[in-house]
Each structure stands twice: as structure tokens, then as C-alpha cells.
């Protein structure tokens, strides 16, 4: 169990580090979501149950950073974690580019889900919303491309 947690903790630390450092490079880069970038390789390797649980944890952390209330990203990440875990079990996906594409799609879906919840709760959305979503998805995909080789190496060690 402890061995299983090590790669996750390393990825979480990486995400937290990136989250802390990117505003220093540019405040505009905060539209990226490093926790989602971590969730994609993590959920793809953890299965449906792991995806849901890590989605809940990472979503809650994301909410603590980005949202006025806890639950927006938590809910969305749970669903995304489940879908990604399911896909990880069905498909044999490797390589940086496919992971980046999954991350891009996950960001867009997450944004759509969170926007839906915002509207449902009567909260205003910032504009231009979809421009930010597009930019954020591209940067998050790039972050996933950075995290994926780390995750691959850590999980390989873990399996060995």
C-alpha cells in the first residue's frame, strides 16, 4: 500500500510544485490545472475505482485552489476519473501525445461540467470563458505531457 502511494505522492508534489511555480512565470498560466494533469496518468493506471477516488481527492484540492465552494471540481474529477479509469482498463494507451490529448479533452469536459454546475447554482461565469478554457486545456495538456514520463517511470519501478 505504501509502495503504491509513493508514485502518487510524487505526482501530487509535482503538481503542487507546478501550481506554486507557474504564477511566478506568468499569472496567466494559472488557467492550467496541474491536478487534472496528474489525474489523467493516475486514473488511467488505477482503474475505475482508483480513478474515482483520486478524482475526489484531486478535485477537492483543485476546489481549494480555484473554486468558491468545494465540490465543483470534486464532482467533475470523480466522473472524469471513473471514465479515464475505465478507458485505461479497456485500452492499452501509452505515449505522451495520447495522454496529452486525453488531458486536453478532460480539461474541456471538466470546464463544461463546472460551468454547468455554476449555472445550475446561479453563479456568474467569467468571460471570455471558452477562450480561457481553450488556452487552459492546451497548457494542461502540455503539463500532462511532462508528468506522463514521470508517472511511467514511477509505476514501472513500483511494479518491479
Amino acid at each position, binding site marked *: 500500500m505504501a509502495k503504491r502511494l509513493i508514485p502518487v505522492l510524487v505526482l501530487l508534489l509535482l503538481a*503542487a510544485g507546478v*501550481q*506554486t511555480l507557474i*504564477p*511566478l512565470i506568468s*499569472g496567466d498560466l494559472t488557467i492550467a490545472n496541474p491536478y487534472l494533469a496528474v489525474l489523467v496518468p493516475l486514473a488511467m493506471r488505477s*482503474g*475505475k*475505482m482508483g*480513478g*474515482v*477516488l483520486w*478524482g*475526489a481527492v484531486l*478535485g*477537492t*484540492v483543485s*476546489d*481549494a*485552489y480555484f473554486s*468558491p*465552494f*468545494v*465540490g*465543483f471540481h*470534486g*464532482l467533475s474529477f*470523480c*466522473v472524469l476519473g*471513473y471514465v479515464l*479509469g475505465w478507458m485505461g482498463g479497456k485500452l492499452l494507451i501509452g505515449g505522451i501525445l495520447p495522454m496529452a490529448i486525453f488531458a486536453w479533452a478532460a480539461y474541456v469536459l471538466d470546464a463544461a461540467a463546472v460551468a454547468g*454546475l455554476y449555472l445550475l*447554482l*446561479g*453563479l456568474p461565469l467569467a468571460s471570455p470563458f471558452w477562450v480561457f478554457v481553450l488556452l487552459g486545456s492546451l497548457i494542461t495538456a502540455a503539463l500532462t505531457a511532462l508528468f506522463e514520463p514521470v508517472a511511467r517511470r514511477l509505476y514501472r519501478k513500483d511494479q518491479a
Partner: protein
Amino acid sequence: MDLRPTARRPEIALCLLVLGFFVLLTFQARQGSRSVLGNMALAAFGPLLSAYDSASRLTREGLQAYLWQKNAALESENLAAENRSLQGQLELARPLEKEVLTLRELLQAPKPQGYQVIGARALTAYGAPFSRYLLVSCDARFLIPEGTPVMGPGGAVGHVQGASGTLHKVILLTDPSSAVGVASERAGVKGVAVGKGTDMEIRWISNESDVRVGDMFVTSGEDGVFPPGLRVGTAVSVEDGGDYLKKITLSPSSKMDQLTWVLLLRKTVG
């Protein structure tokens, strides 16, 4: 109660979590503030957020302060250089402005009819203590005959006595060898103004003549050198003499030691 088969089903976990998050969201939205869980999450990640915020602000504000200071220093240097340049230009412009004013005054002075007016640069006054000359320079195209009258902004100045190339020697009205026929503007009393060095005296005016201190004397035109009507000077002292002739001292209307430009009045043919 065995919950293991249910707990292992990810779909149930997903539904429960989604439902839980949704209920949590609704509860928080109704409350209008962060929930206990939200506050706990914030408390847990607070130090990280503070560290990020402090580091970010320090870097950004430090960079901005540095850039501002650098720009301010550069701007200050530029302004100082510009200021020095402008001061230099101002120093250069001052004599030009004075010269322009002199030329304007000279050009606005009334010119006699039948004379061609030729501008000449007054170079230097010389000849003291015995004589009072002025060296002027004018364009070599003009032939300036001897005896040509010279006027300045204040009136008559003297007449040309000799030339060498573009340079001409002018005998000033204050030179002891200079004599010019004058008449008072007020009463028309005529006499001859003779130079005394710094001022002039008027001779050949009888004690009975009406001359007062402050009377302006102009050229009468009877000496055959100066055209009539050019201002010569103002009477500063008037006394009756024992030889039936008044002793009148005249202060020249032109400031002979401050001349920069003069006009040579050459007679036109016909």
C-alpha cells in the same frame, strides 16, 4: 452486514461521491460561504497558497520596483542632458534675440527720402581718447563713397571717412573733428553740433534763441552731408554765454558704444 461487494463497485462509489459533492455544493451555495470542509481544505493548503502569494508578490513587485527605478534613472539622465542642451541653446539664442531686436528697431526707424539704405555690421569703436571712430563692415558689392552718412536705431551716428575692402571707417558724431548742422525740433533753432568725446556741444546759437533743456535736435541737412530730419541728440544743459552765444550740451540719441548694426545712407542717382 457485509458491505464489501458494494464498496468494491466503483459505480456505486462514483454515484455516492457525485451525490455527496452535489449536496455539499448545494449546501454551501445556500449558505453563501465556504463549508467546514472548504475551510479545512483552505487551512491545509493555506501555507502553500501564502508561500506562492508571497513569492509571487515579492518577485513581481521587486521586478516592477527595479524596472521603475531603472526607467526613472534613465529618464532623469535624459532630462538632465536635455536640460543642458536647452540651456546651451538658450545661451546661444540670447545674443541673437538682442540682435533681432536691434535690427527691428533699426528697420523701423524713419528713413530719409532719396537715399539707398545699406545695412552694415558695427565691428568696434576705437580711437579713444583723442578720436571716436567706428569700424563697420558691409557687403563688398556696394560702393560706399566717402562722406556717406551713417544712422543707427537712435538716429544719426556719423559719416564714412575711409574704406578698406569691406571695412569702412566711420567718424562718430561725438568725435571732436565731427560737425553736423542741427535744428531743434520744437523751435527750429539752427546750429552746429560738434563732438566732445562722449557728448556734443551746439555752437552758433545766440543767447536770444529759444532753446530749453530736453529739446530734441535733428539734422538740418544744411551741411550737405546728412539728410534732414535724423535725430542727433537731446539738450541736457543750456546756458547763456558771455560771447552772446549759448552753451548747449547735447547728449547723443544713439548709444555709440552699443551699436551692433548701422545703416549706410548712400545717395541715389538723380
